[in-house]
Structures are given as structure tokens and as C-alpha cells.
């Protein structure tokens, strides 16, 4: 399993990183290729969200809405205990996404966003509308499940994929790697609150293992910041706000997911990424 995992790694890096960041490990883009189904066993069909309705989370939310907080908290606790034992998605900054599609995450295909299809009945029909990236050879099988890949897919060159990611970053979308089957990174999502299901599950319901925070946090360089406010409104995690006292933005490091959307909006390079593990009280906050 490679080098010994460091204490301050997120659990995916510990399990799948071979000593480094898990989504930079080429192995995690290839595993599926070698996975064979048991003889006689059928593929699990996509259910398009139907399973979500019968899920524990849905029961929890209905209990919460009905005023039964005890049941709500109990179900959330059970889901978290189960999720802790398996990988989930993780937020990553634009530059890491671009490195990923240029170096290891090929082939890359643009496709519709399943979350916004579900929450807003969004239909993305062509490359001008697609907002999600599917990774790996599994994408060649999309025609078997045209409803899951509604609107089709379009394979992109690494350069096109980088441009695609820059476009959605400009539009204010958080980038996330999504794993499938436990050890295969099959998606690079671009989404925002409240339409993104993983963001929402984490922010609203405390399902913290569904979406892990990024490797870094964003920090304002107050020498460079002139308080223009371009970054305000970019944060999907309630970490960034305008602080009247100092007349400049303020980022709460405990809340920050390191998505770097505030950083990419800054024209003065006044926001920088700092590794989470640099701070004693943040290195275990995932």
C-alpha cells in the first residue's frame, strides 16, 4: 500500500493515496477497468434518484420537518457511522482540476449534471450546456444508459476540458471529485448550493463524509486586498463575508472548503491557498 499514511491526511488519501493526495494518484482512475463482475450477477442499474426517496436521509428530513429532532439526529448519526468507513467526494481547486484532466483523468467527457437535473429539472443537451465531467473508460458505455446520460456526452481533449473547467469556475461553480465503487474517481463535478446534492447534504444535514473539505484553505492577504468585493458571493460554504470593521472580506478558516472560487475571482492575487495541515487546529478538520 505504498508509504505509511500520515496522520493529518484525509481518509481517502490514507486509503487510496499511496502516500500522496488520492485524486493525484493515477491508480484511482484505472481500478474500474480491472474489476470483473461476479458470474451471473447483473449490473446495478442507475435509479436516477429513486433510491434517494427511500433513503435514510429522506426519512431524517421528514422527521426534522415534523418536529421529531431525536429521530432526525439518530438517522444522521447512523448514516455518518456507515459513511466513515468508505470514501466520498472531495472539493478541489481549479488548478488541481486542470492538472487532473491534463495528466491522469483521461478520457474526459462532458455531460449533464445529475444533481441539477433532479433539483431543478435542468436539461443540458449539448456542449454549450453540459456542466459535469465524466472520467475514465466507463464513459464509453454511456449509450447503454441514455437516461442517466440524458442529452448525451461529448468527449473532450485535455485542453478543451481545462477550458470547460475555467468557464464553470468563472460561473461560480465548486469543483469536486466524485468516486464510484469505492476506489474509482469517475466524475469531476461543477456545482453550487442549493442544487448540488453533496454540498447540500454536508452543509444542511451534517453528512460530512459525503463531501470532504479540500486539501487547502483560502486566506486573504490584507496587504494586497483593496476591499473591492469581487470575491463576495462566490463562497458556497458560508465561509466568506464582508467585515465592516476592517472594510475587507473575511474568511472563516474552520468553514472554508478550499474550493478557491474566491481566489479565482480576485484580480489582485490577494487570496492564496494554504495547506490545511499548516495549522494545528485545521489539520484534522476534513
Amino acid at each position: 500500500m505504498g508509504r505509511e499514511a500520515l496522520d493529518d491526511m484525509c481518509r481517502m488519501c490514507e486509503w487510496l493515496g499511496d502516500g500522496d493526495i488520492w485524486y493525484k494518484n493515477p491508480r484511482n482512475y484505472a481500478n474500474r477497468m480491472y474489476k470483473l463482475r461476479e458470474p451471473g450477477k447483473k449490473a446495478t442499474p442507475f435509479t436516477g434518484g429513486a433510491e434517494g426517496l427511500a433513503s435514510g436521509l429522506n426519512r431524517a428530513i421528514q422527521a426534522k420537518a415534523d418536529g421529531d429532532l431525536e429521530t432526525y439526529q439518530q438517522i444522521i448519526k447512523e448514516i455518518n457511522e456507515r459513511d466513515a468507513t468508505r470514501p466520498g467526494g472531495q472539493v478541489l481547486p481549479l488548478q488541481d482540476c486542470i492538472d487532473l484532466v491534463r495528466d491522469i483523468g483521461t478520457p474526459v467527457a462532458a455531460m449533464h449534471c445529475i444533481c441539477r437535473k433532479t433539483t431543478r429539472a435542468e436539461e443540458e443537451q449539448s456542449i454549450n450546456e453540459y456542466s459535469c465531467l465524466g472520467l475514465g473508460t466507463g464513459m464509453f458505455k454511456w449509450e447503454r444508459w441514455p437516461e442517466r446520460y440524458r442529452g448525451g456526452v461529448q468527449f473532450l481533449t485535455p485542453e478543451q476540458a481545462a477550458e470547460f473547467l475555467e468557464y464553470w469556475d468563472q460561473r461560480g461553480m465548486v469543483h469536486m471529485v466524485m468516486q464510484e465503487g469505492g476506489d474509482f474517481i469517475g466524475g469531476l463535478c461543477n456545482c453550487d448550493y442549493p442544487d448540488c446534492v453533496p454540498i447540500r447534504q454536508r452543509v444542511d444535514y451534517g453528512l460530512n463524509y459525503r463531501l470532504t473539505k479540500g486539501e487547502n484553505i483560502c486566506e486573504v492577504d490584507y496587504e494586497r486586498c483593496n476591499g473591492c468585493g469581487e470575491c463576495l458571493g462566490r463562497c458556497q460554504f458560508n465561509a466568506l463575508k464582508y467585515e465592516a470593521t476592517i472594510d475587507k472580506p473575511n474568511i472563516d478558516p474552520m468553514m472554508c472548503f478550499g474550493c478557491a472560487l474566491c481566489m479565482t475571482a480576485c484580480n489582485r492575487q490577494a487570496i492564496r491557498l494554504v495547506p490545511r495541515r499548516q495549522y494545528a487546529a485545521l489539520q484534522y478538520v476534513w
Partner: protein
Amino acid sequence: MIPVNPVITIDRERCTTPFDCKRCLRVCPPAVFAVHAAKIVRGVETDRTEPGAYLLAAVYRDKCTGCMKCVEVCPVGALTVAMPQEVRA
């Protein structure tokens, strides 16, 4: 138990093509609703105009404020939003 949020009911006899209609899904400020294909069939793209092919649900009900915007836009009168005090009475 006193409900915190309104109780949302969807009459599926009336709401038959929610993915085609989209109105409540689009208008809801906290995006309470979700829509999904009733069944995903290999090799088939679901017809969004076929009655019953997609189902609407009020998944994120804990975010419902009772603003009634969804009831107002529903073209077939399929939605009812009952306020907590009404439900309790």
C-alpha cells in the same frame, strides 16, 4: 409532535409530467422539490411527456417556509401546502 414545516402533498393523479413542467422545481427558493425517473431502462431515454414516467417529491421539506409560490405556479392544482398550525388542529 408539532410539525415545524408545512406538510406538502403532491397529487400524482394531477401531477403526471413534472420533468416536462418544471415550474415548482424552478420557482422554489430553497429548492425543496426533486424529480426523478420512475424507472431507468437500459438503452432507453425516458420520455418526459409520458404520464408517470417522472415522479415529483418534496424531499427537502425542512427548508419549506410555506411561501406558496409552488402552489401558485402549479398549472394542474396538484400541490397543497398545509401550514403546521392547520395540520395540528
